[in-house]
């Protein structure tokens, strides 16, 4: 007998992709896709049920379809279209409570996967450089999406205590990027000039959309041999990028703003509805956040196909060139290198210069 998977939050890009992907798995018999608004993208052969998870009707949906695996992806930072921050918070927190209550009532549910975020760690200068799954945050997020995720995880832990027979997996995603990403960070990176916080160069980590879908799929099936897919896991690509590196790779100039003024700039941008510059995003862009992914690799047995840098490169390819394309800058430097004055008499070709550069790099390394 195949599995019946219920997925929430399918009106979003990532939810839709996950629904389409998981239908192709042989052990899945049926996929029930739930969201409050009908999605703009197609969902393959999934049964779409228009239901608001804030309402108790979700209990009926679970019972009617005989759902045994619930993938909760409706924990998000931004409203889909025209929604207010208040309704987002309600969907995140009240929706999760309703869904968990429904799961608790339904004896057939065997597995619960929750898409959370590394926002639960907050970002503060007093935090350790690398967060592991057990690091307690130094300063709890005081509001916004970060606080929502903390509360959602609290309810999920409570559910896991009450229903020990259900395998619960909480995936804390770093910032999800990719060609179709619609997260606030992706919007930020689409600005022509990136406002940054003066004197801070945050460390950022990204997950590629494809990897996000893959790991959700891994968590919603039976664990593979030698791995365990219940528990809490940080999900992020290998390595990290500094914000300054991101800006240069994107080819967008940065505009450093003093920390007190950042809030005003953020408010102005939000009023103009250019991007959602929420307080927790400002904190992320001030202090940065890096998580340890050893549990993901060793316990969950998941190896992302994209590193942080590759995920970002894929995102860059999907956006148009910025005002300062890196290729043009590199070309300008090469032209300077080709000048006879700088390159020195004999070898004036850029190739020669680059070879020389490699040599001197070796020198300094020795």
């Amino acid at each position, binding site marked *: 007998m195949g599995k019946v998977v219920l997925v929430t939050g399918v009106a979003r890009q990532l939810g839709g992709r996950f629904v389409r992907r998981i239908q192709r798995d042989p052990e899945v018999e049926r996929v029930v896709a739930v969201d409050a608004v009908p999605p703009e993208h197609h969902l393959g052969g999934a049964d779409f049920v228009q239901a608001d998870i804030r309402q108790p009707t979700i209990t009926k949906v679970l019972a009617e379809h005989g759902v045994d695996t619930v993938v909760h992806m409706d924990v998000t930072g931004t409203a889909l279209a025209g929604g207010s921050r208040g309704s987002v918070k309600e969907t995140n927190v009240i929706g999760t409570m309703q869904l968990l209550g429904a799961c608790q009532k339904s004896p057939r549910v065997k597995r619960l996967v929750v898409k959370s975020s590394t926002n639960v760690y907050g970002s503060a200068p007093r935090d350790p450089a690398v967060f592991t799954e057990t690091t307690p945050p130094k300063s709890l997020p005081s509001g916004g999406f970060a606080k929502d995720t903390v509360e959602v995880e609290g309810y999920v832990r409570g559910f896991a205590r009450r229903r020990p027979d259900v395998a619960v997996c909480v995936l804390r995603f770093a910032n999800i990027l990719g060609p179709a990403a619609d997260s606030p960070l992706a919007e930020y990176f689409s600005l022509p000039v990136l406002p940054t916080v003066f004197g801070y160069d945050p460390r950022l980590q990204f997950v590629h959309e494809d990897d996000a879908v893959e790991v959700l799929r891994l968590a919603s099936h039976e664990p593979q041999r030698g791995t365990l897919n219940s528990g809490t896991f940080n999900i992020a690509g290998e390595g990290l990028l500094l914000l300054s590196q991101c800006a240069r790779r994107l080819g967008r100039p940065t505009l450093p703003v003093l920390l007190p003024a950042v809030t005003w700039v953020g408010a102005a941008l939000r009023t103009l509805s250019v991007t959602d510059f929420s307080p927790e995003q400002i904190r992320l862009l001030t202090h940065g956040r890096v998580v340890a992914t050893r549990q993901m690799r060793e316990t969950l047995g998941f190896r992302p196909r994209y590193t942080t840098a590759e995920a970002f490169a894929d995102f860059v390819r999907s956006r148009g060139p910025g005002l300062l394309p890196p290729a043009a800058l*590199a070309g300008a430097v090469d032209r300077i290198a080709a000048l006879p004055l700088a390159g020195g008499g004999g070898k004036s070709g850029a190739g020669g210069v680059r070879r020389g550069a490699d040599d001197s790099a070796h020198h300094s390394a020795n």
Partner: protein
Amino acid sequence: MADAKVIPFDDDRSRGGAQRPPRRRSGPRRPGDGAKARDVKAVPSVPGRGHTDAAGGAAPGSTAAGGAAPGGVAPGVEPQAAEAGARGGSRAARRDTVPEQALPPEPRGGGGGGWDRRIAGGLAFLRRRLTGEYDVDEFGYDAELTDQVLMSLLRPIYDKYFRVEVKGIENIPADGGALIVANHSGTLPWDGLMMQVAVHDNHPHGRHLRLLAADLVFMLPVVNELARKAGHTLACAEDAGALLERGELVGVMPEGFKGIGKPFSERYKLQRFGRGGFVSTALRTGSPIVPCSIVGAEEIYPMIGNAKTLARVLGIPYFPLTPTFPWLGPLGALPLPTKWTIQFGEAIPTDGYPPEAAEDPMLMFNLTDQVREQIQHTLYKLLVQRRSVFF
């Protein structure tokens, strides 16, 4: 043996008089130490007159030798050293000197190629920087920037200003994790930075020191950015443990603000070593502890007072009042050019203890005391050997 009477700081002059023989002894030692001194010594083997220069420089006194290395070199006697030190030497000047010492093959290989390479290297560096194609580790350490820029900026201060003398570099293991524990002093953390340069420039395997810094460092704009890029991270057990597990060389100054912000009258008296957290981290990872004593940093900003109210208003742990600082404005923030010695002591192994040892408070206190005593002891010894604060 090292009771407090051994350190009569205030009468350096009279003690200097009493210790003529040590001064004599330290004369010949001088050319052998420090990277800069080695440069001077290596080059004179080419022209005859270099010998006299070096010998003459060493004999009259340390100032001449210390100061002459950069100054005396510039006129063009030893172009190699000049190039290594001040790269201001123009190409024309260099051309002049080339025939003079054409015989010895240059280590840089090939006449004018050095400058070409240098420029090409600089441009390649610029290219990587502008396009963002460089790597940082998960603590934000930017190895390339540190090597090429930050260290080059600190090196003149290290070489010329504080004239740091490094001893016992061989006590730092060639590979694997190790925890270097040093005393902390000097109002501003110059000692940590100098220790970082000392390890980077002197260690035969070119190891990088990863310093653990106070949370204040990571709250200040600009400072936090540079600190992360230079490989520093927050002084907490998680970060220290993670770095040691990766086999990095970690530097910690357990006295913290108590040490760096202590009044001038308490100089070279080690403060409490925190709660000994560094010992349990070392025990947990089985990394050896290398005690390190830094002499000279105490006198760079003689802190004669502490404006506590002002400090509280500004949210900093202390607000130093030195004979010069608030009074002369930014000029008063210039450190005094003291002569420094950094001595790395013999490593204390921690891998012989059972795994539960990290939970044993008694053992932790004992080890903490052992490290502290060793540093204090070495400090006293170095102070006795020191001829004066500035030379």
